[in-house]
């Protein structure tokens, strides 16, 4: 279809869809007046049952942990897909140009700026670890912490040292971290099956609400997810980095 035809078709269809949505949304409860049984049931006994003060984490890593298993594997499969799609093709060559990759566009950055950027890395990693292990207590958990952890080595890149970043986070290692995190989650579910007879059932002591090691398996799940997410995002980023920095040719 030509562009005008396409846009006119969409004009009609989009208006129709908008009308359908508005008609449906009018049947929603008034904003702020929601009273669902699911949330109320959990608000009532989430803390008492799970000894986790962040109910979101309790839901994510325990009550609805099976969703999270699927979600982690979406991440895993997508990143595997990225690696598959961006794998080297015939006629491409991966050769870092010394001038381009070792000292790329930020090469002019002052030493102070570089030092600052490099100093960010340990800070980011510390923040990430904090967020991951406090999943059941405060907002955030394996996913948010995992991305920050994955972003840890990025300042090294931003400081203009791509190849050094690859040395800090070698491709093979981050991929293995990604895979082991994902496998570990499934294994945790199976170990629940073996120890308690039910898949994903918590076999660990619950601890005291508010304490670091409370909430049973939630801490373990959070760490595993943190591992997987940081590995996965690093794999994805370095695939894109490779494309942008070192892979040449292959164009038709």
């Amino acid at each position: 279809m030509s562009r005008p035809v396409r846009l006119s078709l969409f004009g009609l269809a989009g208006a129709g869809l908008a009308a359908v949505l508005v008609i449906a949304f009018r049947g929603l409860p008034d904003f702020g007046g929601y009273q669902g049984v699911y949330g109320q049931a959990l608000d009532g006994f989430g803390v008492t049952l799970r000894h986790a003060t962040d109910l979101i984490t309790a839901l994510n890593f325990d009550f609805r942990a099976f969703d999270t298993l699927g979600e982690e594997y979406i991440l895993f499969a997508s990143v595997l897909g990225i690696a598959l799609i961006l794998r080297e093709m015939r006629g491409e060559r991966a050769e870092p140009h010394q001038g381009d990759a070792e000292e790329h566009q930020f090469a002019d950055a002052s030493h102070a700026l570089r030092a600052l950027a490099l100093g960010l890395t340990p800070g980011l990693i510390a923040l990430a670890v904090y967020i991951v292990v406090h999943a059941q207590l405060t907002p955030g958990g394996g996913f948010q912490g995992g991305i920050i952890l994955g972003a840890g080595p990025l300042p090294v890149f931003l400081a203009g040292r791509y190849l050094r970043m690859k040395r800090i986070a070698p491709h093979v290692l981050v991929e293995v971290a990604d895979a082991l995190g994902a496998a570990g989650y499934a294994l945790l579910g199976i170990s629940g099956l073996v120890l308690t007879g039910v898949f994903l059932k918590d076999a660990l002591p619950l601890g005291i609400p508010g304490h670091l090691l409370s909430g049973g398996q939630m801490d373990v799940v959070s760490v595993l997810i943190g591992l997987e997410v940081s590995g996965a995002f690093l794999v994805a980023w370095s695939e894109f980095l490779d494309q942008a920095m070192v892979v040449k040719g292959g164009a038709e």
Partner: protein
Amino acid sequence: MSFLPYAVAGWLFVVGLYGVVSSSNLIRTIISLTVVQSGTYVLLLSVGYVHGGKAAIFADIPAVSRAVDPVVQVLVLTDIVIEATVTGLLLALAVQAHKRFGSLDPHELRALQD
């Protein structure tokens, strides 16, 4: 006024679709796709909001006080992870499409015309 959040959610969905349909650059198509998806976040969270409710974190508030619905938040969290990863996958495809077709304009992608 109480319809506003829902209207915004619907708007994001439709305007994002418009972006996808009208785009002449795959990377823009992909970015518009994330706008479509953000419509679902806004709808879910608006549905679960409770007037005067607190976040469902009971570190320093008594568990009896009103809290916003925690379930929708968990759904949105899953949704966000999906967004980030599927977008990454699509971007990888876009990079490859540019190598193979020499263009990111969907109009120039002509391998599959019937």
